[in-house]
């Protein structure tokens, strides 16, 4: 089968196109996603191909977008809405927390909606276009949270997210949109939610991570191995909720040293949940204290020099790994 070099944002577009083609109940809406193709061009060409009834622009109104999606999802449609930036979703998060996330528990009626949300830093977006908010979403009952790091995973997980009968927050790292490419076949199978993936084997330590930090961790692990300091497993969680706890615990059992990396804030970050899981269920397997490498608890700064200091990268992960391996 011929392969095509595919960026992450192109893979998202392929996933959306497949859903629109195969599922007449799928509708896409959001800000500037129609003829314009979206702020990051994830929906490029979709309105032209599938028409304005299925791919349409809305006013700037995140709460009405979420609310309308909830209403549609409870009446037989399968809406996929785009946040221009995940940062803007916080003006309307009550719809997800209180309406979407409680509906099935309260009424037994499913809410099959997906919120696509570009997130993360690394593009000098400043405090309001760089946030990494997965921990907020993971805190909500009734909501699932998916965060792919590779183009192949992105399109395959997006299909599963959209076909899931529950509200799913689908996080798309905007730095990765065009910085990561894979050679992909035209046909693919969906990947089930809740399954992590070992993207690099190793036996001396494991990096538990997701999103853009997977790629930084892979570079750091490569360097550590080249330096002869040890072999480092990188576990890409892919879905944060439901979390693949079995894969996390198996990775801890295989390596006995754990580094958790994310570019979201430290206090109450998703890494705290991972650290708690390891402490509760794999404490006896640890040869060293669990280490977290995260952004500090400060707003995302704009200047490149500040943002580089803010965001974990291959260099800081490398240093943290050496320290962990030396413990």
């Amino acid at each position, binding site marked *: 089968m011929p392969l095509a070099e595919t960026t992450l944002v192109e893979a998202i577009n392929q996933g959306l196109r497949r859903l629109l083609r195969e599922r007449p109940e799928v509708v896409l809406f959001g800000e500037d996603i129609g003829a314009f193709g979206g702020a990051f061009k994830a929906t490029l060409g979709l309105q032209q191909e599938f028409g304005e009834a299925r791919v349409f622009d809305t006013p700037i109104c995140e709460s009405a977008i979420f*609310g309308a999606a909830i209403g549609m999802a409870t009446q037989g449609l399968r809406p996929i809405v785009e946040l221009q930036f995940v940062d803007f979703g916080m003006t309307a998060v009550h719809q997800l927390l209180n309406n979407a996330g409680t509906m099935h528990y309260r009424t037994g009626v*499913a809410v099959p909606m997906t919120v696509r949300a570009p997130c993360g830093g690394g593009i000098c977006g400043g405090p309001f276009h760089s946030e990494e908010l997965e921990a907020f979403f993971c805190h909500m009952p009734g909501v699932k949270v998916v965060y792919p790091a590779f183009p192949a995973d992105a399109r395959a997980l997006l299909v599963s997210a959209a076909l899931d009968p529950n509200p799913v927050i689908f996080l798309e790292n905007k730095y990765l949109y065009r910085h990561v490419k894979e050679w992909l076949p035209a046909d693919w199978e969906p990947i089930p939610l809740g399954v992590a993936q070992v993207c690099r084997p190793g036996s001396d330590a494991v990096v538990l991570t997701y999103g853009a930090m997977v790629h930084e961790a892979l570079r750091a692990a490569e360097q550590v191995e080249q330096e002869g300091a040890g072999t480092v497993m990188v576990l890409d969680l892919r879905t944060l909720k439901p979390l693949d706890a079995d894969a996390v615990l198996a990775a801890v059992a295989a390596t006995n040293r754990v580094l958790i990396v994310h570019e979201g804030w430290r206090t109450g970050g998703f890494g705290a949940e991972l650290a708690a899981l390891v402490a509760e269920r794999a404490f006896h397997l640890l040869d060293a204290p669990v280490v977290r490498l995260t952004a500090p608890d400060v707003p995302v700064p704009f200047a490149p020099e500040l943002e580089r200091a803010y965001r974990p990268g291959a260099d800081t992960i490398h240093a943290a790994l050496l320290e962990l391996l030396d413990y």
Partner: protein
Amino acid sequence: MSRKQTKATPPAAARGRPAQAAPPGSALLKCMLLTQLTEERLVRLYHQGRISGGVYISRGQEAIGAATAAAGGPDDLYAPLIRDMSVHIGRGEPVLDIFRHCLGRVTGPMKGRDGNVHYGCLARGVYPMISHLGAMLPVVTGAVMARRRQGRPAVGFAYLGDGATSTGDFHEAVNFAAVFDVPVIFVIENNQFAYSTPITRQFRCRNLADRAVGYGIEGLAADGNEAVDLYRLVRGLVDQLRVRPRPVLLVCDTMRMRGHGAHDDFSYVPRDLLERFTARDPLDLARARLIADGALTAAEVARLEQVCQAEVDAACQQALAEPPPDPATLTEGVYAAG
């Protein structure tokens, strides 16, 4: 002009088809009676300590829900709010299920997972409210969009109070519905107070119906205590919206005749305001109107009251005897399977 007075300008559809628009007078009265009697019983159960949390009643506002619920067709969608028990009853919610719900029984529509005013039945097109004011408005808007896409010419009824008109969700939802020509009637129940805050601290406009101008839609101001007139108005409006879909603001003037909840003595409400609306009690107005129109005799009204009281008594007794949820089911059903 976007704002019209009920009596000055009855909708054309209502004028043109008087037979269809004839109000089911006794049905409206029965709906209001069941609401009033059920709420009275719920307050008593609350003071007896048999209902946990709180009880929030609609005394004085029963006509709005009764009239608007009766005006919709079988495919129409409703998102009632805190003082809309008459919407639930009017759309077919058995009084028994309301008692089950308020008592937190596993047999109730929310199985004890939610309480007091938060209930509904999506199979009947009635959305269960959440407490965040304005939050249901875009939901019913989206639901109507979906249903119309499926070839069912639904109209939506989204309810809110004067207080919720101050929220961002109100603005977002009305504007969204306007941009997409979604036929939703935003029923604003101006009951003069949001908890303890009077309308003078809620908005500056002369009438909330004037807000419609800014959205490019029609705004109507109606007497929320005249069930029969309100039914006629809304019935005609629904006919119009089915033919030419668009949102409408319908502002119903009324008064909350009790506290925010059963715990609230509403001492902050001026007595003269209460007296003015006591003279315009929606149930008294409906009784007098139906008797004057010859729709019902005084004896038939009395009989209807007895029937409603008996239904409420029986429902209450049955619900009290039913079981609470099993704590072992606490974590079930957070996610839909599949």
